């Protein structure tokens, strides 16, 4: 479990970039992951925590229907598909 490596803001940024989750700003951050227009998973990200407590980290992974190990892999690579494409083919000025 790599909960100690991340701040909750990192998780939010990765979810935004990679999973295209749009977060609602409330007491905590909430957002839905959509697949083909259907809302499949809802994640809650507490504000301002590093390291992320272990049970909270596991709860976040369960909300995304992932094991902790799968969640670790999701977070390890924050590069989005669009960003990768931009690296390969930088926009012409």
């Amino acid at each position: 479990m790599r909960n100690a490596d991340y701040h909750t803001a990192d998780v939010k940024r990765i979810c935004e970039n990679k999973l295209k989750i749009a977060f609602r700003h409330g007491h905590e951050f909430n957002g839905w992951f959509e697949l083909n227009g259907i809302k499949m998973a809802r994640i809650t990200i507490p504000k301002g925590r590093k390291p992320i407590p272990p049970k909270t980290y596991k709860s976040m992974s369960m909300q995304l229907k992932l094991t902790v190990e799968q969640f670790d892999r999701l977070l390890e690579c924050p590069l989005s598909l669009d960003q990768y494409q931009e690296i390969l083919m930088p926009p012409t000025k």
Partner: protein
Amino acid sequence: MAPPSDPYILWPTKEIATRYRRPFIGPTTGTSGTISWTITGVEKTTLVYDASLDSRLKALEQAYRDIEESVASLSSHFQEGKVTIIALHRLINFDLSESIDVILEPDGDGFIARTVDLDLFGFGDDPKEAVNNLKLEIEGLYHDLMTDDNFSEEWLKVKSFLQRMIKDK
């Protein structure tokens, strides 16, 4: 003669009458007897002793002491890192038709409250904050689910569940 119903003129015990120096509307008399008091700074009046109200107040005071003891034992319980299951009977803006079971336990330098039936949690610096955040989560999810039906089958079942459970206050 029936005792008057105005709560401001019914004081069951001398101790409460002197503690809460409310202005009185009087005079009053009743079949239970009369007690006269002089309260510094407030007009003198006649009070009616109501035995049923007195017993209700004593029951409330005992319930308050029981809650204080429960809170004290819970505090030591959490300091030992133990898991506690509590029943949530109401949210912040809604009541619940049935209680929702919540697992409350220490997590890192704070506490996490998780529902058994739903994939929801609340994190806080103390148990009360964690439970409060969980209540906000449940209400937030309910509002999300009520916007439309573009959800997976699993979430539509959760929507039906919450529609049964959540009542307006």
